[in-house]
């Protein structure tokens, strides 16, 4: 994975010094809260419901065991012994003190980590496929391109005060595991007819209150124009994105209001102009970065045999592992969704244990997924049982990936000052209701996503089943949505009818799964059956 050189290290060290100075000026009264807030947000520091919250960047979701270990240590030393992995493949801490923050950032910088641009109206942490570099179906590893974009977007002077936040995802597989078209810019690495690698650009996607699926804006951007084209997309947005209404300020509204064709025309015009400016790094820079992402030293004759006599292990292998491009290896996903647990939370000890296992059994590498789980990307099949046993002992071997128990949930009103309703208790009740492994297996793949307000941090628009928490005259109320998907078949979920209480929504989901099981044909997933039979049979069962 990528290793900082002296320049990268100097950039994060300088940022720590800058933020230390900003905190000093804030505490000395030289900066008011109104002045300080945008500055602290650009460094991932929020003021939440109970305390400051610090969001630490995990660029494109990749980290090594030293970094992961430190994330656990920070949870112990500066927080309350746990961290929360987020849908942007980052981690956040809920109980941070402002006065400690510069020291935390200094510790992070020592392991090449930071909190730069994890919030604020700027280009955010760039997300990617959690299986990058390991997936059997990728055409290239997308991470070098994400790293090139990370450096370009870090402190880009023209794009630090955009109309609104800006999220970029880079993938390189047909199977989209990163919700690419629900990003402000989605980039898919592709091969053209001449066999050259380039980037396909989508723009104007997003969730939030007005969900949109990004349209394709360019089939193929050559690798030596990647930064220039990105810069053109951003400049048009910075100049013309709406600033009169924060709820209409995302690029999706600009693309929608201008129309895709007019946005494309403006971008192409700006692109033609920017091509005259020497702003594009040489391909040698991309090659330098790529050299950090070479395949690990796999054992070439690793056995594909796996002893599945232990039924619990077998279930976990079936549910939580994926094919690796290297024979004898698998990709293993650690579910952070134990039955009745808090989605995405891990204790300091669990974080350090995962770090150690990655060091011993996954070439020192881990990934954070947008579904709030952790991945060991390169596990030798011969080691898998040992890994599973260690996970099981630490309460980390829940075999529920992509099932009804593997719920994405935002922190909701338990932690978030923007939320209208709690998300976590709903997730807990659902995972308990469907707690039996047999029940989960019967229902199969069912992506359930919960947001505690219309900002949609819990991706409810993209859930096969989505839940949206609202405030109904001071009481928590939950709307139910069906039919969303974030994959290659991206679609937006639709509200099925009037909302429910917390218990009511759990009952309604149970009824929906019964309708699915009664109507399911062949290997259909919940989503497939829903798409085939439509909403009516579900509404009838739920409201009838």
């Amino acid at each position, binding site marked *: 994975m990528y290793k900082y050189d002296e320049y990268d290290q100097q950039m994060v060290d300088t940022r720590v010094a800058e933020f230390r100075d900003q905190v000093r000026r804030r*505490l000395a009264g030289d900066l008011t*809260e109104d002045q300080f807030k945008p500055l602290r947000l650009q460094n991932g520091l929020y*003021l939440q419901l*109970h305390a400051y919250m610090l969001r630490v960047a995990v660029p494109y979701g990749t980290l090594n065991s030293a970094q992961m270990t430190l994330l656990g240590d920070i949870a112990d030393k500066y927080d*309350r012994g746990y961290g929360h992995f987020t849908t942007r493949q980052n981690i956040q801490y*809920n109980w941070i*003190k402002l006065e400690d923050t510069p020291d935390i950032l200094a510790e992070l910088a020592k392991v090449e980590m930071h909190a730069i641009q994890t919030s604020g109206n700027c280009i955010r942490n760039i997300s990617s496929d959690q299986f990058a570099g390991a997936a059997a179906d990728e055409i290239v590893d997308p991470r070098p391109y994400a790293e090139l974009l990370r450096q370009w977007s870090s402190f880009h002077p023209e794009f630090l005060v955009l109309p609104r936040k800006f999220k970029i995802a880079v993938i390189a597989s047909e199977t989209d595991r990163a919700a690419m078209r629900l990003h402000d810019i989605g980039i898919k690495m592709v091969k053209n007819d001449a066999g050259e690698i380039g980037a396909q650009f989508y723009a104007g996607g997003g969730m939030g209150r007005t969900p949109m699926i990004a349209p394709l804006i360019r089939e193929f951007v050559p690798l030596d124009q990647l930064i220039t084209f990105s810069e053109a997309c951003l400049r048009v947005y910075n100049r013309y994105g709406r600033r009169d209404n924060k709820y209409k300020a995302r690029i999706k509204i600009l693309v929608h209001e201008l129309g895709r064709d007019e946005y494309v025309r403006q971008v192409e015009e700006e692109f033609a102009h920017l091509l005259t400016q020497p702003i594009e790094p040489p391909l040698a820079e991309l090659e330098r970065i790529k050299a950090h992402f070479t395949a690990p030293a796999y054992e070439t004759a690793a056995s594909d045999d796996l002893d599945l006599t232990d039924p619990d292990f077998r279930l976990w292998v079936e549910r939580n592992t994926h094919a690796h491009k290297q024979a004898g290896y698998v990709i293993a996903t650690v579910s952070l969704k134990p039955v009745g647990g808090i989605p995405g939370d891990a204790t300091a000890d669990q974080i350090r244990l995962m770090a150690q296992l990655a060091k011993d059994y996954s070439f020192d590498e881990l990934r954070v997924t947008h579904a709030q789980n952790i991945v060991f990307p390169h596990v030798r099949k011969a080691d898998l049982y040992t890994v599973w046993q260690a996970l099981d002992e630490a309460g980390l071997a829940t075999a529920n990936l992509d099932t009804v128990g593997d719920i994405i949930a935002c922190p909701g009103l338990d932690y978030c000052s923007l939320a209208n309703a709690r998300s976590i208790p709903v997730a807990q009740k659902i995972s308990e209701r469907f707690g039996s492994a047999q029940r989960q297996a019967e229902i199969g793949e069912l992506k359930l996503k919960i947001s505690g307000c219309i900002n949609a941090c819990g991706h409810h628009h993209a859930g096969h089943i989505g839940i949206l928490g609202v405030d109904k005259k*001071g009481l928590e109320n939950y709307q139910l949505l069906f039919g969303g998907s974030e994959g290659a078949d991206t679609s937006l979920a639709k509200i099925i009818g009037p909302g429910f209480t917390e218990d009511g929504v759990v009952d309604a989901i149970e009824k929906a799964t019964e309708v699915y099981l009664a109507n399911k044909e062949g290997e259909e997933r919940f989503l497939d059956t829903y798409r085939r039979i439509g909403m009516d049979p579900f509404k009838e069962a739920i409201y009838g």
Partner: protein
Amino acid sequence: MKILTGNDLKTGAVIWWTGVGWSLDVNESADVGEHGAALVAREEGAQHAVAAYVVDGEKTAEGIRPAHIKERIRALGPTVRLDLTPKASDPAAADWVI
């Protein structure tokens, strides 16, 4: 009654205005009446509190209870981590917010 809440500038902790200073305990909240806005301006200016605002509350047998669930959760802590709240030993603590 009108009560005033905010966060401690340095630590971020949720605090409640007692009439003379700030407390971590909602039950020590004072009724700020019509003086909320002036207090917010003064206390934020004095670098003690940040993001302060006034909410409705009522005195109950169990103490002072903010009118809206959001501030009740602020007063208690996360309902899903009662171990981290002042009512860590009360398994029914979460009921207080609903």
